[in-house]
């Protein structure tokens, strides 16, 4: 292109992409036509009327590179932006083509009345805009006779609606759809989002959108993270500003806002309904990107879209808002989607769109993952609730809760009662309209009610969503919004929070409530009510719906948030059953062993093991409230042989061992298996706990929310490992079918090497198992990052795909195949001599007298970080005493003797880490949930400030 273009001098856009075309006016957009008549109008160009369009089109630049595009991305902006919105996508696709990767042409249009396209002076409703866009794509050869295809639509805001409408109408060339904060359905009767209600109000509409640039300004201000640079704001305003423009140049913005079909009589309503229905029939690959901080397109619209496109890849960019394209690297996501999801289907001959079956195949990992699937024939699928069915006539105890006492005895639920309640509750939920695949958020404390709810939902096929109260109200609120449940079951505190914070979902109370309270909290029914309804239906012979299958979604568990923002982790029924099997087989849990645990995920598994489970007296949301007496009582009550405890609970159990009587010690002596769950613990603590249960084999397994059990080591194994020269914490060998590989780190501390089993190599721990998660919930990009290539011992690639998971932990394997954990990838120090993982040095520092806990953090820029140890003094030690008193202990620096001792313990001769400074913090900051993972990021930031000379006191 030669000569000046409208985009000359605008940042981030290449003027060679700017094209102005005169295109025959669409049907409905001619002299006598009225708006909305497009459907009845014959195609053709009888009048010779044209419309002038401005588009950004990379065709010329791709031709300049000498590459033939494999397809086209048709990008449609929303209101009140213009094609400038897509400049990152234009740049990214041309860069890919220049790098020799498959070339995708981008055509980003300025819709008529907007951007630099024509101001026609006509009102354009949704049907008209669809006809307009088709007229343009016909002229460009992207649709109509002789269309070359394939086309992937990309749309934002109401441009997303237009792009999806185009997609529904052009199945012959459609190869995929991408949307950014787009809604295709607005339920009748629901109020418009407040900002739009204001904008559409008569009078306000005219002044806000036409006479001033207020609507434009507000929309641009929605990109808050980071704020738009001034020159980018100016670029967005360019088509609408200037004396030559005047208010009429913004008419299109006003028209677009007025076109939001808030009620059934709106002229655009039929077109919107048609699009919404059509989208639900799309089977092409779909990518749904979302910024949750959007005051207009709230998350109910995301939920609606995901319901219509169940096969879509979905990614919620936590913290991002409406102007997603300005806030996140969306072009990278689109490029990955097109390369991985769309390209394979368009490479095949025949229709562009793949069938739903193809998509399902890819969801399961496709051919590559097949090769990587763990060896051995998979066990036949036995659902979690089967043990309940089998013991439905057993009057023995299934669940005991010692925290709840009835008539002086602990609450005890028999197998018969639990099985009956579960079936009745499933029938009641079914009667209430809860369907397979719908999400049921459970905000119910552990105990028999939670157990019944979990198994009822599983049996019904409803997806159980669990996020524990340890996240705090804000964390919980984020988790609930992220998973967007259809039904929310909670006790009073949860219902109050749901009401106050506007959480989604129909409300069911876990407890009985007075009618007034139910009305105030918007509660439809109670768990007891559902059970009652279900009993009647079962008694009447009404069957339960068919059982869900192994591949159906079963649960969404939220990660603790101790290692980054809490994420939802999806499990299928098959994966949960595999988890039950691996726990049962590895720890020898049988019908007679009984299970004592206050650790929620495993407490819920009790009925699935077919053994009685008991919760000791404790505050289940605060594990450190568990006492040794309470454990002994629980063991006695359930005649339990297997005990599962979290590290924080173990610490308190050991600390309160003095209160045990002879009978208590005798009861604990009958325990045969004892597990520390949640985080590996060190030998002294495990040994102290083992001393209370002398007949038990103590285990400290390693796992994470994404794969609850990866490896296991016994106390004996821990002691054997103590003689090894390896640094870090030995967590043993893989359990059952689980497999472990190590992805080596580069100088910058990134795990870029091919994962292998080579001993002694420091890297990120990568795991695979039948009980590994299905994926992260609505975090497709996070899923992609977590899946990685794995190679065999010789370095050859043996497989890749979603059935391998990057744990974010670093460590190494030894000659005996044992895994040693050395910290988190995010906590690796990048020193001038290479990456250093923290745990080995911390373990060494903790051997220094007076040191209770230690954390190794890096200070300084990446690549030249220097190692700093932060210690927490042992209570009562001379160090701790020296830090009390009005004038003492105000320095964060450790005294000279301690510095020398720590340097000697972790220095070059020992753990090999040259410590530059030793700081003292009275308490190391830890995460809320486990109270055990040290917040190294916070400590590192504090240490950096102290050592820069800033006068700061506490981390």
């Amino acid at each position, binding site marked *: 292109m030669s000569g000046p273009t409208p985009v000359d001098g605008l940042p981030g856009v290449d003027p060679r992409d700017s094209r102005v075309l005169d295109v025959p006016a669409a049907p409905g957009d001619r002299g006598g036509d009225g708006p909305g008549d497009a459907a009845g109008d014959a195609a053709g160009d009888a009048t010779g009327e044209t419309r002038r369009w401005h588009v950004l089109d990379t065709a010329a630049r791709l031709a300049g590179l000498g590459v033939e595009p494999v397809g086209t991305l048709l990008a449609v902006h929303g209101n009140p932006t213009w094609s400038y919105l897509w400049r990152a996508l234009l740049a990214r696709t041309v860069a890919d083509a220049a790098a020799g990767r498959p070339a995708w042409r981008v055509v980003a249009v300025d819709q008529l009345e907007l951007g630099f396209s024509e101001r026609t002076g006509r009102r354009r409703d949704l049907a008209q805009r669809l006809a307009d866009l088709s007229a343009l794509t016909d002229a460009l050869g992207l649709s109509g006779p002789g269309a070359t295809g394939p086309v992937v639509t990309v749309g934002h805001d109401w441009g997303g609606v237009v792009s999806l409408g185009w997609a529904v109408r052009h199945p012959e060339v459609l190869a995929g759809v991408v949307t950014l904060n787009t809604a295709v359905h607005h339920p009748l009767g629901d109020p418009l989002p407040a900002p739009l209600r204001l904008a559409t109000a008569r009078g306000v509409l005219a002044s806000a959108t036409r006479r001033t640039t207020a609507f434009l300004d507000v929309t641009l201000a929605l990109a808050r993270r980071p704020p738009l640079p001034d020159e980018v704001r100016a670029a967005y305003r360019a088509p609408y500003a200037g004396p030559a423009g005047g208010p009429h140049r913004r008419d299109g913005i006003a028209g677009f806002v007025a076109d939001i079909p808030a009620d059934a009589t709106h002229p655009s309503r039929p077109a919107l309904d048609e699009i919404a229905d059509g989208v639900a029939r799309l089977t092409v690959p779909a990518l749904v990107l979302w910024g949750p901080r959007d005051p207009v397109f709230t998350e109910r619209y995301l939920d609606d879209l995901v319901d219509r496109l169940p096969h879509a890849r979905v990614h919620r960019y936590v913290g991002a808002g409406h102007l997603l394209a300005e806030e996140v690297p969306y072009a990278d996501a689109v490029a990955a989607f097109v390369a991985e999801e769309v390209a394979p289907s368009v490479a095949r001959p025949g229709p562009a769109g793949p069938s739903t079956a193809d998509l399902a195949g890819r969801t399961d990992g496709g051919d590559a993952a097949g090769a990587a699937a763990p060896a051995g024939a998979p066990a036949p699928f036995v659902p979690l609730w089967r043990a309940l069915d089998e013991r439905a006539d057993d009057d023995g105890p299934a669940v005991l809760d010692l925290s709840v006492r009835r008539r002086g005895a602990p609450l005890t639920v028999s197998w018969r009662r639990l099985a009956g309640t579960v079936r009745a509750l499933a029938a009641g939920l079914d009667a209430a309209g809860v369907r397979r695949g719908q999400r049921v958020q459970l905000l119910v404390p552990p105990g028999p009610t939670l157990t019944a709810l979990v198994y009822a939902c599983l049996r019904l096929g409803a997806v159980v969503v669990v996020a524990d109260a340890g996240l705090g109200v804000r964390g919980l609120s984020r988790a609930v919004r992220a998973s967007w449940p259809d039904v929310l079951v909670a006790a009073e505190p949860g219902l109050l929070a749901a009401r106050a914070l506007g959480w989604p979902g129909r409300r069911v109370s876990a407890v009985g409530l007075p009618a007034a309270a139910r009305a105030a909290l918007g509660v439809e029914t109670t768990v007891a009510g559902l059970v009652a309804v279900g009993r009647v239906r079962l008694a009447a012979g009404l069957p339960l719906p068919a059982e869900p299958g192994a591949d159906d979604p079963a649960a969404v568990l939220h990660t603790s948030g101790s290692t980054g923002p809490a994420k939802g982790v999806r499990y299928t029924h098959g994966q949960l059953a595999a988890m039950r099997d691996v726990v049962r087989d590895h720890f020898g849990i049988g019908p007679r062993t009984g299970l004592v645990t206050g650790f929620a995920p495993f407490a819920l598994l009790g009925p699935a093991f077919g053994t009685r489970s008991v919760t000791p007296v404790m505050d289940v949301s605060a594990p450190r409230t568990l006492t040794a007496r309470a454990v002994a009582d629980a063991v006695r009550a359930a005649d339990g042989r297997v005990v599962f405890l979290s590290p924080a609970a173990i610490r308190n159990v050991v600390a309160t061992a003095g209160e045990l009587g002879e009978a208590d010690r005798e009861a604990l002596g009958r325990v045969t298996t004892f597990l520390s769950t949640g985080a590996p613990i060190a030998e002294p603590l495990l040994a102290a706990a083992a001393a209370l249960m002398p007949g038990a084999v103590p285990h400290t397994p390693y796992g994470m929310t994404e794969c609850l059990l990866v490896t296991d080591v016994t106390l004996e194994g821990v002691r054997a490992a103590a003689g090894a020269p390896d640094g870090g914490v030995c967590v043993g060998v893989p359990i059952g079918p689980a497999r472990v590989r190590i992805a080596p780190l580069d100088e910058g501390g990134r795990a870029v090497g091919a994962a292998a089993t080579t001993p002694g190599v420091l890297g990120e721990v990568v795991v695979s198992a039948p009980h590994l998660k299905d994926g992260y919930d609505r975090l497709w990009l996070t899923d992609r990052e977590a899946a990685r290539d794995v190679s065999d011992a010789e370095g050859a690639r043996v497989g890749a795909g979603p059935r391998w998971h990057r744990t974010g932990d670093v460590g190494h394997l030894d000659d005996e195949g044992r895994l040693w954990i050395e910290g988190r990838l995010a906590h690796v120090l990048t020193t001038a001599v290479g990456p250093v993982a923290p745990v080995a040095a911390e373990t060494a520092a903790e051997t220094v007298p007076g040191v209770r806990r230690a954390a190794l953090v890096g200070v300084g*820029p990446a690549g030249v970080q*220097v190692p700093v140890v932060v210690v927490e003094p042992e209570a009562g030690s001379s160090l701790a005493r020296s830090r009390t008193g009005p004038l003492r202990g105000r320095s*964060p*620096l450790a005294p000279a003797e301690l510095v020398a001792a720590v340097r000697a313990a972790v220095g070059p001769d020992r753990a090999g880490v040259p410590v*530059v400074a030793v700081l003292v913090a009275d308490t190391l900051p830890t995460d809320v949930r486990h109270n055990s993972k040290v917040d190294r990021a916070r400590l590192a930031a504090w240490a950096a400030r102290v050592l*820069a*000379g800033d006068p700061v006191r506490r981390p």
Partner: protein
Amino acid sequence: MNGTVLVTGASGFLGRATAGALLTAGYAVRTLQRRPGGVPGADDVLGSVTDPAALARAVDGVDAVVHLAAKVSLAGDPAQFAAVNVGGTRALLDAARDAGVRDVVHVSSPSVAHAGTALVGVDAGPADPVGARGEYARTKAAAERLALAADGPDLRVVAVRPHLVWGPGDPQLVARVLDRAARGRLPLLDHGTALVDSTYVDNAADAFVAALRRLDVTHGQAYVVTNGEPRTIADLLGGMCRAAGVREPRWSVPAGAARAAGALVEAVWARRPGTDEPPMTRFLAEQLSTAHWFDQRRTRADLAWTPAVTVDEGLDRLAHAVRG
């Protein structure tokens, strides 16, 4: 024999160590300074770098120069700083060029690129005669720019900036610290938490020899040289005190107050007759309360050098020297 090297300022603490290191490395050494150099085995020329005649005698027949002579002080007449540090360097470079000397190692200071804020893990920045703090740093910055500008096909020049040099016999840092600590007058600013790099004297001397050997790679560039073992100020000063058997600093004053006091003292000292050192200057307050440690990767790779003496070994040697 590796040729003959002239060391200027060889009667100083670092100059004497440098002459010794060059002799050990097999060079013939000539020294130029105002007082007898006292380096056994070196050929002594008496004179000042501001005296062209003395310079001409000193550079006659040498292959290389290591230029350390400078006015190092916290206060004093600005004209004197300029005369010795800038004028002396210019005169030396002229004399060297006239005599056909091929190689020059110009000894500089990290303070030439230090504008008073914390330096955390950075490499050598450009010398800044305007932004640098204090007359010493400003004139050394100007001198380094002169020296590097002289680098060319006939004369190869490298600038080496050792940071906070210390060791037994150090009349500057160590002696002052120990003297004040012994009198109980060594406060720590904000508890001395800032992390600083330092250089044991023999390591600095070795680095000059390495920079000279590697001039084919290093010429035209500036390198910061340190032990690569940052320590907190409290740790470093405390270590020196313990090594010397004097009381460690036990009291802390806020750094902001120290800076204000430094500014006041500077103003008073500027009007007051005499040549003694002010007890506190803004420069010193900043040096003792902000981090300054460096990225040594480029230095170690280009110089093909690593420090031979660790901080702890250096402190042991200090203890031996002080206690005999």
